[in-house]
């Protein structure tokens, strides 16, 4: 009889038998001895689970049992296991497990998160992302080509371009003056206009707008921003949107409401997030709230509303009441998500929609649900550095060095030789005024009016010139023997000779310089480079010149038919150093070079002459927005 036969026999016999354990026996058994015994006996055993057993066991019971048992257990991962698990599998597993998980944010965590961290995180994830361009987007971009063609217009019709530029400059100046006056003279009107408009919109919880005067003065943008606000895709703004500047609304976070008392006003950078009805800082993603409403950008809160609560401010109140109340993740639609530029120049064109579901990893990491479960939905807006509402005016003067180039056309060599020996360029000067509009903190657009005078020394010799000098001659004259007188006679002494005449020729002009520049540096000292065009308005002359018979003749204002009264367009390049003298005034030094594209001589002239100018402009830049 082998062991198995004996065991089977005993088991059959003792199957229903229970025998008491002798007293003290269990104490004698060492801890783990029985477990090892049982474990070794049941290692390969399989037993069916009795019916209804699993139903009696709750998930938590089993999970807690297992997790308690294996809490500190560490087991090596079998080889190639990770290779067999795809990222999506793991992500889906984790996401499924953490689907409805909500965890409170540790105290002080938000304070430790810097502005750039989240941006860097998002940017890192989207760096290689490509999204299809929505239909019709390129058509909206197409006008740039037209603008490019317009740029050639300047080259083809400089005079017309000059006129247009002058008009634009005047319009810009007028616009600036208008808006500046509007801004500075009517800060209170914003408040007065806002409140009644809210009530007219039927808002049962009217926004309490308490603009801070200082903020208004600094932030209130031009009216045009309202139009941009209205252009946000899908955004439904309160009827008072027209009275509330976009900048303020976009910059104020709703969650700021809870922290407004402890955080400075610069929290405006954060995007407003949906607040739960309980008032917790639970942030609803666009997906969550987007049911039935689409993924619309959160509308801007009112200006400087430091008392934001869910009851006092509900931007979707009129349109998305049901959606706002729902917190279920039941969306079956895959709506587009818009990255919100949140900049004053924002338009619908610059918002590129894309679907989160099209990207597996993004679905895991950046789906609004997951994201909001793991992080507070704090989106740091791009800083507002791109916009600059300053206006400057520059007054400057410059000593100039004129570089002349002359080529012979039909003139004789003797003429050219005499002309060359007679003429010498000298120091000239320029002076002007420019209106400066910073497109950004670094990019400046300048246009103005420039007067320049090129001096030329013209030396020529004239023969048989008679010079008269008054002299007193003294003579001793004997009138008669013994009668001698001394006679002092005042007379004119004439001498004849040649004269080397030196005449200063003046080549004067009025021009419109239009430049764009890039500057960098700190507030105290900036460096910049500028380039642009110089459009001649008018040129006129004074002095002398050689005529075809080699005689020196006066040079009249219109250039004797030799020089043009409009020398056309030139190119302008410069570098600049700007030093701040006070809050509203800067000193700048700008070495520059002006290259004229066309000759200053007419086609009828026997020679071609062009003058290029290099100079050192020194001037003052005044900030027209400065209160100082």
């Amino acid at each position, binding site marked *: 009889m082998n062991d198995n036969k004996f065991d089977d026999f005993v088991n059959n016999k003792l199957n229903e038998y229970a025998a008491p354990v002798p007293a003290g026996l269990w104490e004698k058994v060492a801890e783990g001895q029985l477990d090892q015994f049982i474990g070794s006996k049941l290692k390969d055993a399989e037993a069916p689970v009795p019916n209804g057993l699993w139903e009696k066991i709750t998930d938590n019971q089993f999970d807690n049992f297992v997790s308690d048992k294996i809490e500190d257990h560490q087991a090596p991962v079998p080889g190639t296991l990770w290779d067999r698990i795809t990222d999506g599998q793991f992500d889906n597993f984790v996401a499924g497990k953490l689907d409805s998980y909500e965890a409170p944010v540790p105290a002080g965590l938000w304070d430790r998160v810097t502005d750039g961290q989240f941006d860097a995180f998002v940017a890192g994830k989207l760096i290689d992302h490509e999204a299809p361009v929505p239909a019709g987007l390129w058509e909206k971009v197409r006008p740039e080509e037209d603008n490019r063609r317009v740029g050639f217009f300047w080259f083809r019709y400089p005079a017309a371009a000059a006129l247009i530029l002058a008009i634009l400059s005047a319009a810009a100046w007028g616009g600036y003056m208008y808006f500046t006056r509007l801004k500075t003279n009517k800060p209170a009107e914003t408040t007065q206009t806002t409140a009644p408009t809210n009530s007219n919109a039927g808002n049962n919880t009217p926004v309490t707008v308490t603009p801070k005067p200082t903020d208004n003065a600094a932030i209130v943008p031009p009216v045009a921003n309202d139009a941009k606000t209205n252009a946000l895709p899908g955004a439904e703004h309160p009827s008072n949107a027209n009275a509330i500047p976009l900048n303020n609304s976009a910059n104020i976070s709703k969650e700021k409401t809870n922290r407004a008392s402890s955080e400075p006003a610069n929290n405006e950078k954060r995007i407003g997030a949906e607040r739960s009805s309980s008032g917790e800082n639970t942030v609803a993603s666009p997906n969550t709230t987007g049911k039935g409403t689409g993924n619309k950008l959160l509308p801007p809160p009112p200006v400087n509303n430091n008392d934001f609560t869910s009851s006092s401010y509900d931007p979707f109140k009129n349109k998305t009441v049901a959606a706002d109340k729902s917190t279920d993740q039941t969306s079956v639609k895959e709506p587009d998500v818009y990255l919100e530029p949140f900049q004053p120049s924002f338009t619908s064109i610059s918002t590129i929609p894309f679907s989160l579901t099209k990207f597996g990893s993004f679905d895991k990491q950046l789906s609004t649900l997951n994201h909001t479960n793991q992080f507070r939905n704090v989106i740091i807006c791009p800083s507002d550095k791109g916009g600059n509402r300053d206006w400057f005016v520059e007054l400057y003067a410059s000593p100039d060095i004129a570089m002349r180039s002359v080529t012979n056309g039909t003139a004789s060599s003797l003429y050219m030789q005499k002309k060359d020996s007679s003429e010498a360029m000298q120091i000239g000067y320029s002076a002007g005024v420019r209106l400066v509009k910073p497109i950004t903190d670094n990019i400046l657009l300048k246009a103005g009016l420039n007067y320049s005078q090129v001096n030329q020394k013209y030396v020529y010799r004239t023969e048989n010139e008679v010079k008269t000098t008054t002299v007193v001659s003294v003579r*001793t*004259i004997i*009138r*008669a023997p013994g009668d001698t*007188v001394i006679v002092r*006679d005042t007379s004119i002494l004439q001498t004849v000779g*040649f004269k*080397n005449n030196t*005449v*200063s020729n003046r080549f004067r002009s009025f021009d419109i310089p239009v430049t764009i520049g890039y500057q960098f540096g700190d507030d105290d000292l900036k460096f910049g480079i500028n380039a642009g065009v110089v459009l001649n308005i008018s040129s006129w002359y004074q002095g002398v010149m050689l005529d075809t018979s080699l005689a020196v003749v006066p040079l009249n204002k219109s250039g004797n038919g030799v020089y043009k009264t409009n020398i056309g367009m030139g190119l302008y390049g410069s570098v600049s150093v700007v030093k701040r003298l006070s809050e509203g005034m800067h000193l700048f030094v700008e070495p520059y070079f002006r290259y004229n594209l066309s000759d200053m001589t007419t086609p009828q002239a026997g020679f071609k002459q062009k003058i290029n100018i290099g100079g050192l402009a020194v001037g003052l830049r005044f900030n027209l927005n400065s209160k100082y």
Partner: protein
Amino acid sequence: MSLFFAACTKELSNDFNQYTNHPLNDTVWVKTVANTASVHELAQLLTPVLFSDSLEITRDTTLTYGDSLEISFTGGTLLTSTGAPATGKVKLEMFRLKKKGDYIKAFKPTAAGDTLMVSQGAFFVRLSKNGSELSLAPGATIRLRFADAEMQPNTGAYPFYGRENNPIPALGIDTAFTWRVFENISIKSYQKQVSNGTIKGYEVTSKYLHWISALNPLDSIRINSTKITTILPLNYTNKNTVVFAVLADRKTIVNLRADFVSRSFSAINFAAKSRIKLISISKIGDDLYLGSKDILDPGNGAIYSLTPEKKSLASVLQFLDGL
């Protein structure tokens, strides 16, 4: 900052450079005027054109020019340069100094030394054959009869001949010229019946050719004479300027001599209470300068300043003809 000033400075200048050899710049007086001095060029510019004619010299010939002039030659009295009698036709060149300005043009003032005289008439006569000048044989004479409607012959006139430099300057002013009275030759007055009446004149017999005149000395008024001195600007020197004094009421033309020491021009023996016109003629370079001043009652040792002006030759001649 200096660059700005340099840019704004209006530079207008002329640098005058005097010619070194230009005559106008030559203000130097000389003790002796060279024959090349520009003043001699005045003689070439102002000397009148000679009247020319021809005659048969082998017989006695009288040439009559209108009612105012007759000139008579005795046949066989003209000699060639070799001393042989000239024969056949010879060329006559003649000029009559009739107006005051003519004396200036010919640079023949009416003075003999310091003696001022009143001219009754003066002539230049020259004979030549085949380009060779002829001379009168010793003892031979020519006779001149001249008259005009204004002339009132008087008995105080004397026949004069012109003493010229030897050799005679071919071009330029004969600075040594002076009038000499003919010894033992008297002047005659004559009258001639013409169609509209009678004209009166003088008949002068001369044993010399060239300059012949009838002059009245001003000895009678020398007692109250005075000296006139003229000064000019420094540009006018004795190298380029001549100065004359012309009496207003008499045909008396006086050349004021240049005085190197005082850089002035002067003459003596002018009668007080005279009306005098001072005239300066200068040639500087290619330009002529004319100065004039009327003097009324010159005082003792009067000094006058002239300021010449640039004039054309025609203007100068016109001015001289109007004296």
